Structure formats: C-alpha cells, structure tokens
C-alpha cells in the first residue's frame, strides 16, 4: 500500500515542472518620477518636449541568468525552437546550449543577442513592457547627482570613451558603477538597449523599418547631424544609429534590454 502510494507520488512529482534555478534573482523595479523633458532627437527640425508620466523601470538590464530561467520556463523562446519569424540565426548565438549561457558570471552579465520579439516576450512574462525611446532617454539622462546631466561635457566624453574602450569585446558586468539619482544602473556605458519604438526614431513615413538600403537618408553621414539637437553628442548618435538600423527579428551581440511598467498597470 505504502509502496503504491510512494510510487504514485513519485510519478506525480515527475510530471510537475520544477521552479527555475535559484541563481536567477528576481528583477527589481524602481519608480522614476515623471517630468517634462527635451528629447535629444528632433522631429524634423523641431525640438520635441516630452511629458513623461511616472513609470517603474528595472534597476539593471536583464541578465543572462534571468533570461535563461525565462527560456527554461517558456521553451518556445529557446534557440533552435524559436519561430524564424521572431529571431534569426544569431539569436543567443554565444550560449553554450539553448538553456545555458555557459558563463560563470551569468548572474551579472547583461543578456544580448536577443531579438526585439524575445525581449518583449520576456517583459510580457513579468507583466511589463519595453521602454519607449523617450522613457529610456529620460532615465538615461540622469547621472548619480543630477536628473539631467546631458550637457555635462566631461560625463559625455567619459561615456563615449567607455563605449570606445569596449570595442570588440563582449559586454562588461552589471553593477560596476554607481546608480543614477533614480537608482538605475548601467544605462549608458554597458550595451545598447531595445526600445519599443526602435523603428520610429527617425521620421521615415512610408519607409520599411530596419532594412539596409531603404530608410531615411537621415541615417547617413551628414544627414544625421540634422536629426539631433546636439550633433556633437557622439555617444548618443552611436546608440541611435545602432538601434535604428535593427529589424525586430535581429539579434545583435551588443544589444540587450530592460523592462518598464507603466504605473496603473497590474503588477
């Protein structure tokens, strides 16, 4: 009798999916107060003042460990099983297996080589979304001492230098630098981050998003100087150039993401 019961319980246990590994710590969100904000991207030649409503943003970019836990729980988003519609051949290309980044520091490394669709699906699993470009820009404008430090040339140069120093290497580790005044980390110097409206960053009505050769000549050379409020903010220009050239199914080794929750959404 007892043996039968034990056998049945063991059978039940085999059918129940175990929870994710303990090294994928839950993402923490911090509240970013709202405000008015002048975007660094122009609308044609007009300056854009955005009213940003308060929102909650993940403190840090999504880590490899967190994303590994997600694909273990949602196998349809694993490399090899993901629909070609949602990611090309470079999706999670550097991972050891479809569920294992093979990185001893996976808990502190930002996940990259994830497509826009996969990033959205991850955020969706947390009842969250990708930030809009304006939300991201607003959050990233803050330094550790000021809500809008974009005009600080020393800081601007340091950000560019940090991005240049990362040339050719895989992304660094999260948490090496102080948080900004909102409590957010690693927005500017670590990786490029997906935004929900990546394709609408340059006015390009009637263009096909993210295909090489099409699209606004604002993306090229001197034309880009017209699209920025301050064309000498090279780190911003590099980031915008990198993001605006992506198609949603692209997985790029330097592009990761974090999620936001618009306040008023259910947690």
């Amino acid at each position, binding site marked *: *009798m007892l043996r*039968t019961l034990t056998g049945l319980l063991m059978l039940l246990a085999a059918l129940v999916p175990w929870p994710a590994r303990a090294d994928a710590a839950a993402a923490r969100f911090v509240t970013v107060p709202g405000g008015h904000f002048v975007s660094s991207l122009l*609308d044609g030649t007009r300056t854009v003042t*955005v009213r940003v409503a308060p929102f909650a943003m993940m403190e840090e970019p999504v880590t490899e460990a967190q994303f590994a836990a997600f694909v273990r729980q949602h196998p349809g988003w694993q490399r090899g099983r993901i629909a070609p*519609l*949602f990611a090309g051949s470079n999706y999670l290309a550097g991972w050891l297996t479809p569920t294992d980044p093979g990185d001893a520091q996976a808990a502190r490394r930002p996940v990259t080589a994830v497509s826009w669709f996969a990033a959205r699906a991850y955020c*969706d699993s947390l009842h969250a979304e990708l930030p809009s470009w304006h939300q991201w820009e607003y959050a990233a404008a803050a330094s550790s001492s000021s809500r809008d430090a974009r005009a600080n040339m020393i800081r601007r140069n340091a950000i560019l230098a940090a991005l240049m120093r990362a040339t050719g290497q895989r992304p660094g580790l999260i948490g090496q630098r102080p948080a900004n005044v909102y409590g957010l980390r690693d927005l500017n110097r670590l990786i490029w981050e997906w935004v*929900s409206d990546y394709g609408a960053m340059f006015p390009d009505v009637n263009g*096909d998003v993210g295909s090489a050769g099409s699209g606004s000549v604002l993306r090229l050379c001197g034309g880009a100087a017209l699209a920025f409020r301050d064309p000498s903010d090279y780190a911003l220009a590099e980031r915008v150039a990198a993001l605006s050239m992506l198609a949603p199914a692209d997985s790029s080794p330097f592009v990761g993401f974090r999620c936001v929750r618009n306040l008023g959404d259910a947690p």
Partner: protein
Amino acid sequence: MKKFVQLLCAALLGTGLIAAAQAAEPAPLPATSIYRIPPLTLVDQDGHSFSFASLVGTPRLLGMFYASCQMACPIEIETIKQIERAVAKAGGKSIPVVLVSFDPAHDDVAALRKAAVQHGVSAPEFLLTRAMTGDIGMLGGVLGISWRPLPGGGFQHNVVVALLDREGRIIATDPANGRIAPAFVAAIVREERATR
C-alpha cells in the same frame, strides 16, 4: 485509504487525457506564418469580433492604420483600392483586406465605422479593425511597422501593406504611398489564382 488512492488515480488519468487532447493540434502553421504571433482578438467596423488566427486559409492584404490619421493612412487606403483595381484590370480577382489599428484607445467600433464610411470601404472585403485583446506590437514587429505617439496627438509611423498567402506567410510588401508597383500587383494576381 483505498478511496484516496482511487481519487489519485482518477486525477492522474484525467490529467493524462487533457494532455493528450491538447497534443492533438490542427496541422501546424509554417514556421514563418504571421498567424504564429501570440493570440489577438479583433473587432471590425460592423462590430464583429474574431481571432486574428482565424483569418488563415485565404490570401489577404494586411496592414495597420489609425482612424484619426490625416495623411499617410488615407493615402494607404486609397492606394490599396487602386491596387485592387489594377488587379482586376490584370484579370485577377481582388483579395480581402484587413487593417489593424495601432490606436485601440481611440479607435472604438464607432470610430472604425466612421472611417469606413469616410473612405468608402465595407466589410467583409475591407475590414478596419482594432484589437480587443493581445499584443499589437508583435503584429507591428512582424510586418515591419513601427509607431510612436506624438505629444500633440497622432502618431509618427511608417506604412507597410503585406500580401499574405493562405497560410499567413508574407509574400510581398508595398509602402502603399500612392504609387502602384506592378510587381506587387502581379504577386497578388499570382497568389489569388494559385489558391482558387
């Protein structure tokens, strides 16, 4: 004790049956079918609601719009009509059109109906729809359409109209900006003929 064991066995059996039932799916969609996006329910200008995936089985033109759009969307709709006329002239039959709004907050059924009257389109050949549940961002992503709300109202966005085959694969796309691309018209004629 025996009853407990019996109940446990019944529960296990029941779970097994449900699992088996779910495993018996209809024929799988091709890997690149747009109907693979997470489920969307749409409602059209006449108030009929349906799932996006239920559109499978017929070639269609699929795009996105919003009802209060002043310039690009009217041009989009006008161009689609011109394309359909060109298809008829080329000896083909017009295929059904579905446009999905990316402004569900404002585009309720009344707004959709008003837009349909304004542009002279009617169901079921030309559906103006909004999503009731689901993630239209995913739809935009697979179509290559991106939008951003403008502070004064309206959206900054691009236009893509896709020709889907009966299984939902994107065969060709067109920017629907007033110019008729003969290659796109030819693709529609070919696809419609092939699935008669």
